[in-house]
């Protein structure tokens, strides 16, 4: 359990419950807070939810502005990678034992096939392990026909630096970050 800022907020990662002024925040609520605090996440117009096993799922609707070409109205790999990076960041947040800032070190994207035209996609991410400040993640992107892309990534954690979490929690309290 780690105190943040002025002791109003604290987090207990071991059972994935997050507290605010004595209230319990569900992990899905926490994920929405993170999504809402990042303009790049907001611009995706994605929905974030959490599976029964606490795996974050990011659903990205088809948007023509993100198409890969005028003749191929499927989501561009760039926006798929952006969504997968975000989803893996959220998976890391949920798996952390201790509050940390995090940053992507490396991301490997493999596209098995292009997504279906005008299909929305959903992304599942999993934090395989966190060892010595490095988080190891895997992610899949699926459309209505199944998995079309996979990604693996490594994130670096910086224990003691909770800037992102503080900004998110300040927003809950209506403070300006």
């Amino acid at each position, binding site marked *: 359990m780690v105190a943040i800022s002025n002791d109003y907020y604290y987090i207990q990662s071991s059972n994935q419950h997050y507290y605010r002024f004595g209230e319990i925040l569900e992990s899905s609520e926490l994920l929405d807070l993170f999504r809402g605090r990042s303009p790049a996440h907001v611009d995706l117009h994605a929905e974030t939810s959490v599976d029964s096993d606490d795996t974050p799922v990011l659903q990205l609707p088809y948007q023509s502005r993100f198409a890969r070409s005028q003749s191929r109205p499927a989501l561009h790999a760039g926006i798929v990678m*952006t969504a997968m990076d975000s989803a893996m960041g959220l998976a890391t947040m949920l798996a952390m034992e201790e509050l940390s800032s995090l940053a992507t070190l490396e991301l490997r994207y493999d596209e098995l096939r292009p997504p279906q035209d005008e299909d929305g996609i959903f992304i599942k991410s999993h934090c395989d392990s966190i060892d010595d400040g490095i988080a190891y993640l895997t992610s899949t992107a699926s459309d209505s026909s199944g998995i079309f892309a996979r990604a693996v990534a490594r994130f670096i954690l910086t224990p003691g630096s909770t800037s*992102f979490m503080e900004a998110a929690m300040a927003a809950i309290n209506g403070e300006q970050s």
Partner: protein
Amino acid sequence: MIPQSAIDAIPYAEQLGIKLHDTLDSGFVFKLEPESRFMGNPAIEAFHGGIICGLMDCAMTVTIMCVLEKAEPPSIINQTTSYLGSASLQSPVYVRAEITKPGRRIVGAYARAYQDNEVHLVAKCSSLFKLVERLRQ
């Protein structure tokens, strides 16, 4: 094909606002001006890593279309991106893209992203693309 025509053919690249910055013997340099919608971490006001990923993908795609004179964007097979530093939203991001393997069906490309100093990269990546032939009528 000129770079701006290639950018216009890719809605994702167009909505990002990628512009041609320089033409080199070995490829092109593209520029992305900072916008608040690109912010990943509001606490440090940096570009989202995924935006940098997408920017480099587009830079390589446009370079392939222009150098190999392809009307259709190539289809990505894979991309490995290494992040070497945070990209501040106070400055534009530049991406230098080059072709490393101009194959008949498969093309390899490389991109480097930097801000104020080309020596201090914020990210680098390499990718493989599959060329897409326009269907004959």
